[in-house]
């Protein structure tokens, strides 16, 4: 009895491995496959410059003699063009890696912008209440009636008409992030507001008010962490939606330009060659986009169930 070991505080990693969430992660094979795909695609996008055979954005590296080569395993395939090339001699594999980078950057930044905006407005609405609350929530109600893609298209169109129609690629990227952010904030605001309404009547908030903490500190340091579970789920599912929205805008021709293509732009370019039998120009970017979105959706579904106490 005297030998009973003193329980040590386990390390963060050990605690993470021992947690319920990790347990439910290990039990679902589909989730592990999805996570692996997301991880691999993420790494490929991150280390794209090392993994590609050419820089598809650098016109000096493109040779017209290499145009319209079919994938490596077909009869006319040529090294080093694994997935073939397009009309400008651009290697499809390299273009996909760079395109995925752009898609992910726009998606992640768009979701972050939406989350910050929505969380901020939700905190204010829930904590302050009254007329401010009604105003923010009425705007949210009205916006929720319209599909995000329509709002994103409108914002994109209006910003372009205000700044001139011919923007350079990096400005377009920012416009896309803003358009996506402004189209997706409502869900965060509603969720945070709901949680805040519940949390603000609890004793710890009253205690914090008693010791004289300013409302801003109470909201951000004390109330916000308690609303993070559902926010994480929404953010994951929204990431897939944001990537779809960006791809759709680019496909419709109001997104990323041909000089700095995202996956959606690559699909739009490939669509022009659908009838000439060069299927690889569109098939592989489409496949990359579909597997990225499907895997993120699977992760989001799993996270929703894993964080839902009712299902455990």
């Amino acid at each position, binding site marked *: 009895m005297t030998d009973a070991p003193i329980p040590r505080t386990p390390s963060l990693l050990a605690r993470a491995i021992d947690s319920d969430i990790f347990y439910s992660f290990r039990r679902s094979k589909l989730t592990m496959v999805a996570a692996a795909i997301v991880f691999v695609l993420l790494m490929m996008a991150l280390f794209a410059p090392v993994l590609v055979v050419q820089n598809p954005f650098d016109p000096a590296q493109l040779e017209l003699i290499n145009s319209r080569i079919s994938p490596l395993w077909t009869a006319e395939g040529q090294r080093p063009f694994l997935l073939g090339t397009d009309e400008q001699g651009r290697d499809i594999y390299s273009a996909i890696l760079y395109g995925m980078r752009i898609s992910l950057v726009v998606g992640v930044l768009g979701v972050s912008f939406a989350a910050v905006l929505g969380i901020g407005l939700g905190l204010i609405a829930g904590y302050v209440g009254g007329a401010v609350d009604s105003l923010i929530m009425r705007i949210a109600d009205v916006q929720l*009636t319209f599909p995000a*893609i329509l709002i994103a298209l*409108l914002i994109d*169109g209006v910003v372009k008409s205000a700044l001139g129609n011919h923007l350079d690629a990096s400005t377009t990227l920012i416009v896309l992030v803003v358009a996506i952010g402004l189209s997706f904030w409502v869900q965060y605001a509603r969720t945070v507001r709901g949680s805040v309404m519940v949390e603000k009547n609890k004793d710890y908030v009253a205690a914090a008010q008693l010791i004289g903490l300013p409302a801003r500190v109470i909201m951000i340091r004390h109330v916000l962490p308690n609303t993070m579970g559902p926010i994480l789920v929404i953010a994951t599912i929204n990431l897939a939606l944001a990537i779809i929205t960006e791809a759709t805008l680019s*496909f419709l021709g109001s997104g990323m330009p041909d000089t700095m293509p995202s996956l959606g732009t690559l699909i739009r370019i490939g669509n022009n060659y659908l009838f000439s039998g060069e299927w690889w120009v*569109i098939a592989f970017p489409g496949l990359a986009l579909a597997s990225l979105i*499907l895997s993120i959706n699977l992760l989001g579904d799993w996270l929703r169930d894993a964080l839902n106490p009712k299902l455990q």
Partner: protein
Amino acid sequence: MLAFILRRALQSIGVMIAVGIIAFTMFRFAGDPVNQMVAIDTTPAQRAEVRASLGLDDPVPVQFARYFINAVQFKFGVSYQFRQPVSALLKERMPATLELATCATVIAMVFGILMGIYSALRKDSFFAKVLQAVSLIGISLPTFLIGILLIYLFAVTLGWLPSFGRGDVVKFGWWTTGLLTISGLKALIMPSVTLGLFQMTLIMRLVRAEMLEVLRTDYIRFARARGLTTRAIHFGHALKNTLVPVITVAGLQFGSVIAFAIITETVFQWPGMGLLFVQAVQNVDIPIMAAYLLVVSLIFVTINLIVDILYTVVDPRLRATINRPA
């Protein structure tokens, strides 16, 4: 009841006024309308004349009132790129979009409900699991990819269906329909399937969930105890109660079907309002954008209003909560 309808109607009008303000702000302040309309070599005096003739020198509230009064009569100004009244353009394109959206909704409801019932009643069968997996893929694939895939399969490879356009149309006054010609019907298949797919998976999942819930309730158990046939229980008793929320969702979704038609119409070059809108966004044709926003909002708001009112008529439980003094 009447008070509820009135309050809902007032809310809808409020939303429309808000959308009207946004549309007017876009119309008036995003880009200079005069610059869009005149040639480069127009003299400043001529520009001022155009400006005055358009009433752009009046105070902003006066301009807004004028825009609003015109919009109520469906006058939305002149398109920058086509040099034609926007209302004429929209009127010409509207039948194509409404026909496409209606077909898509019908397809989504028929197949969605059938597949939903099947996967609820045979929820452990192999085919039901396949349906669930396919519905997840249907939600994950962007609409335009599905459209392109269909074009590649049925237009490029098999050559069965046309890849773009509406086919031959028949005119009834200002309304045009492709439903009465073979080529029109053939052209309608792929776009409406593409557009309806997302709604179909949504309805399928909803019917499945509702049906599973209803099958657990006491009155179904009681019906079983009475010795009714399985078919009578499933389709006479369970399905009826499942369909109320399904019809609501399908009704509310009709608005977003029209909005999502933007993508489908671009993929299939379908000559509807959505294609007009996408071209307007690319060419910064603000009058068309503002008018499209107003027309689509009007459709949305009207549908929401009708569905809300119908819902209270259909479901007596809701009527009770509305009539109770708050």
